[in-house]
């Protein structure tokens, strides 16, 4: 008889039946680098990024400190409203930024949710959508820095993130579809076919639809 472990709904068949990896647990119960109340006035930052909202179930804010000579992010703080994996992934992202005395801005811009997840030792399938905001908060903070430091040529276009790799549909397209009156996944799909060939993108598409509905219609 084989005793190789298997997982069911994020829980492994051997060892402590915890839902999350030990690394996630550590970052969740002992989060690193979040902005403490007594640091609010004293933490000097060059860029601030905010994404999500409590209504969406996740909100993240990232404060970054830049060394303009080296073009590195040398320190950061964050705050997150969200579940265990959302808090742990922002905490891990802050460690990824700060390790090796800071990260080059160009390198920071390359961080993807998948990279954070790998460093966390993986997440249960149904929790993956909770860890996709960290890199966006970071990008927003970097953009804010570019604006404030007059480096307008470096500002990245908001949105334009490819949601459906098969159809090359971006969040801009989904935003436009919602503005054109699409209210549900089915209606957005009727306009864009988005996710039909990439079912793994459906969760993110649904989140975007809700996000844009709230943003524009307050629904």
């Amino acid at each position: 008889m084989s005793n190789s472990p298997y997982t069911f709904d994020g829980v492994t068949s051997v060892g402590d039946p915890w839902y999350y990896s030990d690394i996630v647990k550590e970052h969740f119960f002992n989060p690193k680098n979040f902005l403490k109340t007594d640091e609010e006035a004293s933490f000097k930052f060059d860029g601030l990024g905010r994404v999500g909202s409590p209504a969406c179930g996740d909100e993240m804010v990232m404060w970054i400190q830049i060394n303009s000579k080296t073009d590195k992010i040398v320190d950061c703080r964050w705050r997150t409203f969200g579940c265990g994996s959302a808090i742990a992934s922002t905490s891990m992202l802050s460690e990824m930024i700060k390790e090796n005395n800071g990260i080059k801005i160009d390198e920071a811009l390359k961080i993807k949710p998948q990279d954070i997840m790998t460093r966390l030792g993986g997440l249960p399938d149904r929790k993956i959508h909770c860890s996709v905001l960290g890199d966006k908060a970071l990008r927003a903070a970097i953009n804010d820095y570019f604006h404030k430091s007059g480096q307008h040529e470096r500002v990245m276009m908001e949105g334009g993130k490819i949601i459906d790799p098969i159809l090359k549909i971006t969040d801009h397209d989904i935003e436009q579809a919602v503005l054109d009156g699409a209210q549900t996944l089915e209606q957005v799909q009727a306009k864009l076919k988005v996710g039909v060939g990439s079912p793994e993108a459906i969760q993110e598409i649904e989140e975007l639809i809700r996000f844009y509905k709230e943003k524009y219609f307050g629904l």
Partner: protein
Amino acid sequence: MTKQIYLDHAATTPLDKQVLKKMMPFLQEEFGNPSALYNLGRRSLKAMMEARKIIADILAGTPNEIIFTGGGTESDNLAVLGAARANRATGNHIITTKIEHHAVLHACKQLEKEGFAVTCLKPDKDGIIIAEQVIAAIKPETILITIMYGNNEIGTIEPIAEIGKALLKYNATQRQGKQRVLFHTDACQAAGTLDLNINRLHTDLLTLNGSKIYGPKGVGVLYKKKDVKIQPLIVGGGQEFGLRAGTENVAGIVGLAEALRLAQNDKEKENARLTALREYFLQGLMKKMAKIKLNGHPTQRLPNNLNVSILNVEGEAMLLYLDENGIQAATGSACTSQSLDPSHVLLSIGLPYEMAHGSLRFTMGHGTTKADIDYVLKVLQEIVEKLREISPARLDMGESKKHPKYKK
């Protein structure tokens, strides 16, 4: 191991020792199949008949109106799907509420695919459905109304007896000589605390199960008034009056009957104790923490249920911290469900999304003491302070759920 404080009795309850004792013989030497003719089988049949009688007496029904099933979900499915399909010739309309358990809501969804029409009544802000609202929704094609007795999430108790009486009058005046509109209630959460007398509730169908009342899991009851026609979901050996085939779970059935008997015997005393404890719990929360909202009706609610939203923190995060401190509770946040949406019950009573994401449900039980609640209050206060510091959200009660950045 940290002291464990279990406050998720609405999810399931531990098995009562006295119930287990009653069940034990039927898990061991008294293993006979009740359909068998020899003495061993007849003894199982007799135990099952006794269980049927105990439950029938509590419900003020007759033993032949008690159908044993594989649990609350199956009983709900059998009631809704079974009654709708069997009465299709008289109509295709069903009335239910937005705050039912998924065992009812998903059964209704299935019926819609089969060509039935479903009206989902919206409760008020406390989760209450009133009789007038139910009667007003009846159409000539209506065949079934299904409304839960006590809500599993927010604890609100629906006025089933009032609705039952109103429907009785409606049927007597509007449906003379015709098929009456049937009434089903899911009483799984109410079974241990509320009145189950059918003559007062006036329901045609009623769901009960074992696992919420210190009985075994995997066993349920559907009370079905004698003249009500339903179609079985599981066919085979003709057990349970041909309405639920399969060799009977005799130990489970005996256990369920004993659990129901014990719960109904003790209910006045235990209800008073739990109601006082719940109020103490709520007052403690309000005293220790700001920006808290009680979800569900303030008084017309199950004695053991406390559901609150704690603003600016997320439910799953609180739950995991509580678990680390040995406290088990539940949340209506999206993060614990398979979907991206928070609890359909909390949204249906008009709670904004961010409040639903920050909800916690504590359901107390026989073992819960005042000392337990004091410990939970102390631990939760620390958790909320920590998570509120980590959270960027600084919303006030009643503030718009939209982020300021997007306010136009």
